[in-house]
């Protein structure tokens, strides 16, 4: 499946801001066998005084830009053409949950996709007693790792309500879980904390969702802005699988991967340090159009 993606993020400040340094992560990745960026261009207005790009630890493409003049509005716009393939995975639930610790003991790697990065704590994930009690009550004995991912994802989707106004990017997963509502970021953080509480390595994926559903299917939640979901490590054979708890679906060709990280802090689309903090407003507009639908 091919998509044309366009993303526009704007910030406007009430009073001009003197300088700023931003780290951007919203250009889709190349993923061998799964996803290929055919073309991508990122425009920034006003023109930054410095601009550079590099691959971060997890292999995501990061853009660092610096404004050294006063500005009261910033606009980032991304245009990308992406080819997305179905990931063929064995029809297996992989390892049993009980066998996971032994499998992890055999992992001797700190490479970016090593499951060892995705256990325990990370900047935005901490153990949460209420959540781990919730998880424990849910799992049948002798459950497999991949089944656990699906069981937990479906349960969270059932017990939590999607609410685009209830939380912000700063909301902790504990708060969101206590109130049982949130957006894709909250769903994903809660699911990551839940999976890690039973020892399953779990990470955060930021990306895009196709805006218009295939004929006859319902529109997915979270398509109006950048989206987020979860990936979990199911043992050496099955490896990583991705699950979208906001929509209770396994990730397929409707999802386009931008960045992998331990949690939101590793992949936030725009990190920025502003010299003067003044009132700011931000807007995001996303279109993810399957190429067949593009006119002409």
């Amino acid at each position, binding site marked *: 499946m091919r998509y044309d993606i366009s993303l526009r993020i704007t910030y406007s400040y009430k009073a001009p801001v003197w300088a700023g340094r931003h780290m951007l992560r919203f250009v889709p990745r190349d993923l061998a066998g799964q996803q290929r960026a055919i073309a991508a261009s990122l425009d920034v207005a006003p023109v930054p005084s*410095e601009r*550079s790009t590099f691959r971060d630890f997890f292999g995501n493409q990061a853009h*660092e830009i610096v404004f050294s003049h006063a500005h009261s509005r910033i606009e980032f716009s991304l245009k990308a053409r992406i080819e997305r393939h179905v990931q063929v995975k064995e029809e297996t639930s992989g390892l049993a949950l009980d066998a996971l610790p032994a499998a992890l003991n055999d*992992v001797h790697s700190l*490479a970016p996709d*090593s499951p*060892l*990065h995705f*256990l325990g704590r990370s900047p935005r994930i901490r153990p949460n007693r209420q959540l781990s009690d919730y998880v424990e009550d849910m799992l049948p004995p002798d459950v497999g790792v991949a089944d656990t991912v699906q069981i937990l994802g479906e349960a969270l989707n059932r017990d939590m309500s999607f609410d685009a106004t209830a939380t912000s990017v700063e909301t902790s997963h504990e708060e969101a879980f206590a109130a049982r509502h949130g957006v894709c970021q909250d769903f994903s953080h809660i699911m990551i904390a839940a999976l890690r509480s039973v020892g399953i390595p779990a990470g955060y994926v930021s990306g895009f969702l196709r805006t218009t559903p295939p004929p006859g299917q319902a529109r997915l939640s979270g398509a109006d802005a950048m989206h987020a979901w979860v990936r979990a490590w199911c043992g050496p054979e099955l490896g990583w699988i991705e699950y979208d708890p906001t929509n209770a679906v396994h990730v397929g060709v409707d999802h386009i991967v931008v960045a992998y990280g331990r949690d939101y802090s590793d992949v936030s689309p725009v990190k920025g340090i502003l010299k003067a903090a003044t009132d700011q407003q931000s807007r995001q507009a996303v279109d993810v159009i399957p190429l067949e639908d593009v006119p002409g």
Partner: protein
Amino acid sequence: MSQANPAQSDAIWKLLESYRPNPSAPDELLDEFGQLRPAWSGLLSHLAGQTPETINSWFKRGDMYLRDSGVFLRQYTNDVSRERPWPLSHVPVLIHEREWDEICRGLTQRAQLLQQVAADLYGENRLVRDGYLPGRLIAQSPEWLRPLVGVDPPSGKYLHFLAFEIGRGPNGQWWVLNDRTQAPSGAGYALENRVATSRVYAEHYAEARVHRLSGFFRDVRASLLNLRRSADNHVAILSPGPYSETYFEQAYIARYLGLLLVEGEDLTVVDGEVCVRTVSGLQPVDVLWRRLDALYSDPLELEEGSKLGTAGLVGAARRGTVSMVNALGTGILETRALMAFLPRIARHLLGEPLALSNIATWWCGQAAERRYVLDHVDKMMIAPALSTRMPFDPDETTVLAGELKSSVYKTVQHLIDEEGENLVGQEAVSFSTSPAFVDGRLQPRPMSLRVFMVRTDDGWSVMPGGFARIGPQEGSTVLNMQKGGSVADVWIISDRPVDTRTALVSEMTAEPRAKRGALPSNAAENLYWLGRYVDRAEGFARLNRAYHSRLADAESPSSPLLRHLSAFMKRIGLDTSEAMPAGLVSAIDSASRTAGSVRDRLSPDGWAAISEIVDTVHDEDEELDPGDETARRMVWLLRESSGFTGLVHENMYRFTEWRFLSLGRSIEHVMSLAWALASFLDPGAPDGSLDLALEYGDSTISHRRRYAFIASRKSVIELLARDPLNPRSLIFHLDVLKAHVEALPRAMENGHPSEVYSQLLRIHTKFVTMPQDAMNSAALLALRSDIGAFSDCLGRTYMS
């Protein structure tokens, strides 16, 4: 070393009468047979036979030195931060150079090993791949900084300056308790301990054959300078700021070595290069000696919430434009659990065992180790595996000798079963003892040493000496080292006379140590405000003195003059119903706060003078009586304040920093004097206002000598506003401002006066050409607001 003669020998044993080391732990002074170790005989002969009074007077010399130099320790107790006097134990720890050489060999090997481990953890990760280190331990540590993986330091080396905490175990061997690799503190304190202790033993020190510390600091400075890409670029100490526990030491080292002291907000990254904002514009910084933990050093790529860092610092490291001492990410080497694996890694990487063991450590993430720890729990300290703190840090230890401190788990077994991966067991350390004077007698106290090393072109150089912690109580277990101890100098004793070249850094090199104009904008701002606050406080004190001396002369508070004065004071923030007005106290506190932020630039005497002023206004022992007593207190305050001003003006080198202090002072003076004159010289002001103006302007005597006994409006204006020879007059200070601004960097741009200079020239000309009779209240208030606008412009140009 000469043997003590029999009489001396008796005196020594008398001194040691009540010195009874615990037989189960080694003692630094006495060997296992109770014999005096040879290294100590010189010092003990010197002490022996002296009366307690004499010894006490020697100790006082050291304390006096520390107090006069303003050495202190910032401590946080229940979130309240306060400065505590430096707790010097007056008896140094003496170690013979033969033994010291062995320690140096062991630590040098360890430094080489740690360098290799750092290179591997941020490079190929073979140690994890080949099973020498558990990957999850590294992956879980907040000190393993992913953005730095694959980033090679410009010098190729991760470690340049190290400290190790070592202690002597029960078998007499030294062992490493803790590796300080991130941003080791204490070298400056070691130096201050040395100066203080050499004062204590002034009559003995010269012949004592004690290795001097100066060579080590020469090495430190040379290696930092060698890391520069260009000799024009800066080396700076990156500080977390005046509220950090060891800020004093950072300021001290900066002053001693002639390095810039900067905070994160002083720095900015431009085109991938680190620059310091100075009053002369941006200047490149090539080397940062970090005292700020890496995690807080860049809010863009590391800890997002950090307000101490510099956005873009990691990016600069990635581009290899800045050398950091030590490299960002080296904090991972301090991880306690690493000690469990280092012995094996040493054999693997170096092909030899550790020459100096570290304390035995077991990571409870492995089944066999977990069992071992449980089986020996009564001899264990159990603590967080990823902790980087000292083994005797009381907050850290979860279990000591089988006793569970606060925990959600009921038993140690339960704790280890549930949390094993996050825990290490470490053999409960015991320490050797060393003498301290307690209640006038030598007593054995537990002791550990901090040793410092710097990488030079010829390998690691070890400070011959260090910093000893002395436990507060008898006994030698870890418990005895917790909280409330003291510190001591460490003397490495040679058999031969030592090289005694003095340490004066100015002799180190002929290179000028501070560049003209290399004044960070923030420091300029603090100096400027220090000048303003001090002058403001003086003005306030003069007004308050004028008010209360008139009360003392039985003038009624409701007299027209005092009503007028009181109303004016109220307008500028002084409440005459308070004998020590809150506005005055606040000006002095602000002066002291800003002084604290530029401590590296003030002399110890200047700092002491500020502290005295603070003490004077915070004297809570007595309630001041209005009238005479308050007036006298104000006189005292003014005397102390002019002491400070005098020290600054007599002693401060005429660098740009002095100009900013002086600019602040003159700006404040012009603004407040113009305001006061506008009020006291107003035609409607009550009788006596002219005298008040002269008193406020500190010019009563000058007026009598220059004019008549009776003041007229005209004579007062002439003296306080227009007389360029009166150092209190408006024009005098406008002249001062002009001279300073003219001399500032960038005062002329392309042959024309800069914006800020032009602004001042206009104000100056307008004032000089103003006819005397035009100098009314409105004109004075206009001058005040013009100078206010000039000050804003000065701030925008140089201080932001």
